[in-house]
């Protein structure tokens, strides 16, 4: 079973995981928004 007790190292472990989650979030949202934005734009222009 997972043990989330990290004692005196909490100040290092939790920020490391939080930054990892934030960077993953940034990369995922960035990639999806980039693809969606240009797909819409390409479809709009091809209809004209």
């Amino acid at each position: 079973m997972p043990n989330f007790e990290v004692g005196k190292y909490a100040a290092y472990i939790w920020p490391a995981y939080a930054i990892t989650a934030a960077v993953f979030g940034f990369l995922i949202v960035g990639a999806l928004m980039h693809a969606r934005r240009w797909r819409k734009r390409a479809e709009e222009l091809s209809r004209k």
Partner: protein
Amino acid sequence: MTWAPAFLTNPERFMAFSRWAAPVFGVIAVVLGAIGLWLGWSVPPDYQQGATVRIMFIHVPAAIICEVIYAFLAGASLLALVFRHTLADCAAQAAATLGAGFTFLALVTGAFWGRPMWGAWWVWDARLTSVLVLFLLYVAYLALRASMDDETKAARNAAILAMVGIVVLPVIHYSVTWWNSLHQGSTMLTKGALAPVYAWPLYTMLLAYLAAFGSLWLVRIRGEVWRRRAEAAALRAARA
């Protein structure tokens, strides 16, 4: 013609493949990531590192994958430069953004491990410095592409930079043996260096990172293909 260039010359085939492959890789990444995190938080603290061993499960995969991405970036740049494949150029551009993100993660999570273990956030150690150079190469690649109005010229110059920069990969890998480094030697490639109890979560997280990169790379390439199609359509509309 080999399979890879043939595949890269056909954007339609790539778009059809990536349409289902990107979400499949994404699901694999989420499942493996969940298993890896579960295993990583279930192992006992290390007898030397204590609970900070849990940082290893997010740091080591990021450190490995940022080198793998650079190899893809240089390979795609070579194909774009030699064969003038547009899709290879899209792949290189897409890899650079992701590579910068993963290298940033490797540096930051390493600092959070280094502070309690070495007593310093940063040391000008050969391994750390060479990974910083890798990060700067990614940033330089992206900056070079963004700095020129002529996209073809920017792509060519950035491709040359990417190929020249590949010399940093063996330097990173052998930095712990060529120099007296504070950073520990290769754990994953040395038999017996890693206890099996830590190996399972580490390898699972590495596979999760690889799958996540695969998914994000495909999505970013798709976005780049759409962008170029939109710009070509806008140009045609302006000329009409």
